[in-house]
């Protein structure tokens, strides 16, 4: 949510390359969301003013939604914005809190790896059938490979976060609780 204080803490010393990667992912989301908004608007206006809806708007929207979700994942991971219940952990001392955050990040990275692997397998299966979207006849396999790729990036992002927490635990630095308050 805009206006919430920036976490700072262990994320403060991120490399320029990492920031650049974050910016590029953000840019992709900017394009996708603007396009999603415009596609719907053009579709509706086209339908009434020209009696011509945008062909395939439905499917373009679906694919853009999928891309937004999976490109957003590494960004959420980098910012540790996954909703978590911090009732217990916020009572921990800073050092223990960092150790906890590192362990949780590693475990979650593991979950993302499994998800990425299964997305690849599922997409291979779809590709083997020759599945395509209904209207635009876009092949469904590659969409899934892309999802898997960004899921993998998400796992990498969590590894970065875990390393930062380990470093912070070593230097006993104070950090805000992992997992911020997020919107519903």
């Amino acid at each position, binding site marked *: 949510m805009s206006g919430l204080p920036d976490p700072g803490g262990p994320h403060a010393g991120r490399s320029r390359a990492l920031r650049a990667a974050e910016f590029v992912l953000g840019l992709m989301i900017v394009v996708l969301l603007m396009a999603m908004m415009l596609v719907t608007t053009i579709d509706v206006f086209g339908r009434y003013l020209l009696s011509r809806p945008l062909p395939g708007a439905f499917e373009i929207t679906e694919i853009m*939604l999928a891309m937004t979700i*999976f490109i957003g994942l590494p*960004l959420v991971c980098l910012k540790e914005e996954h909703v978590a219940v911090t*009732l217990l952990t916020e009572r921990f001392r800073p050092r223990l809190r960092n150790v906890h955050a590192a362990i949780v990040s590693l475990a979650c990275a593991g*979950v993302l790896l499994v998800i990425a692997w299964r*997305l690849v397998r599922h*997409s291979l299966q779809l590709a083997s059938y020759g599945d395509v979207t209904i209207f635009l006849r876009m092949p469904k396999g590659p969409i899934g490979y892309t999802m898997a790729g960004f899921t993998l990036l998400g796992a990498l992002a969590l590894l970065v976060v875990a390393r930062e927490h380990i470093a912070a635990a070593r230097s006993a630095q104070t950090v805000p609780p992992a997992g911020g308050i997020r919107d519903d």
Partner: protein
Amino acid sequence: MIDWITGIVVLLAVIAAGVPIAFAMTAVALVGIIAEIGMSPALSMLGQVFYDNGMSYTLSVMPLFVLMGNFVLEAGLADDMYAAANAWLRHYRGGLAMATIVACGGFSSVCGSSLATAATMARVSMPSMHRYGYTEALATGSIAAGGTLGILIPPSIVLVLYGVITQQDIGKLFLAGIIPGLVGVLGYLIAVRLSLLLRPDQARHADPLPLIERIKATRGVAGILALFSCVMGGIYLGIFTATEAAGIGAFGAFLIALVRRRLSLRTLYEVLVETGRMTAMLFFILFGALLFSNFVNLAGMPGDLRSWITALGAHPTAVLLVILMIYLLLGAVLESISMMLLTVPVFFPVIVSLGVDPIWFGIFVVVAIEISLITPPVGLNVFVLKSIVPEVPTGTIFRGVVPFIAMDIVRIMLLIALPWMALVLPATM
């Protein structure tokens, strides 16, 4: 039966251990499904759930409604809304708190999220309540509670999700939320007055504004009114679907922000990326919840629940009260969206088989979830406020919301007693 109960207990334990809810649900569900149907089918279901639900047209409303709310926020419409409510209410006893409630209701009509509503109104209305000596409990309590209206008054992200899971018409759900939302505003206004009756020293009077000032301030709601009429009117008249309304609404809010010169390239980038992150975060909870509901389905929970309820021979109202109790208990510790995603697939078939209207039940669930946003120990609206006014102790905010929670309970009882509150508007569609 033992399987799904174990699953739920383990899930709650993993969540309590501080594992993000999305990952906790995914991991526990995966292990549970492996136990039910074996390794290879379970793993293949994992990939399929993430793929299929990532590519869902109906769910594309989520990011677009989030985006609309973020543009509205950027456009400064919340300040105008508060200024207008303030102009008319400030001189009454507790007037600034009442203006906050009304402004929350107004802002909810263009923002689909309760937390965004609470966060926005906190920034807008806290300073003036401070100035007029409102106690922190009353000030923060009214913002935290008023903010919960965000998911009841349309548009609402939670109602969209409910519609998607239960295959109900999202347009109808939106319409159904309007009257209970207005009743909610009214209830909270009464709560402000009640709280002042008990402790009259909580607020100072402000001077009334001259009529001309009031009228001037009222013009500020034009933007919100236009956007709300466009989105809800379009759905109501069938000009576009609820899914399309989200895109149109986001575009409208974008235009307003643009015309008001509130968007630089930098803020535009930030608004969009933040929407994208919020989308990703929400969908990973959704994926986890869908996987978990597949697990309890395979473990036979729906059948078990149904047979319990038939064995008890329960009256629908009794069942609803039991469900309400469960929501209040879960709501103490769970986050709102995950709670809905977790419970609705379980309760919905049971409720429908008892002859309860599915649209009405959606409103019931949302009101129950609204309460969870302000109950301790995990009340997300309270945490949002805390992050904006860190100097106020969390305990004070929780004390401040007590009268509002009481009104919430009254409202949900009213909803049970008078189901037409939710059903009369969608019936005209």
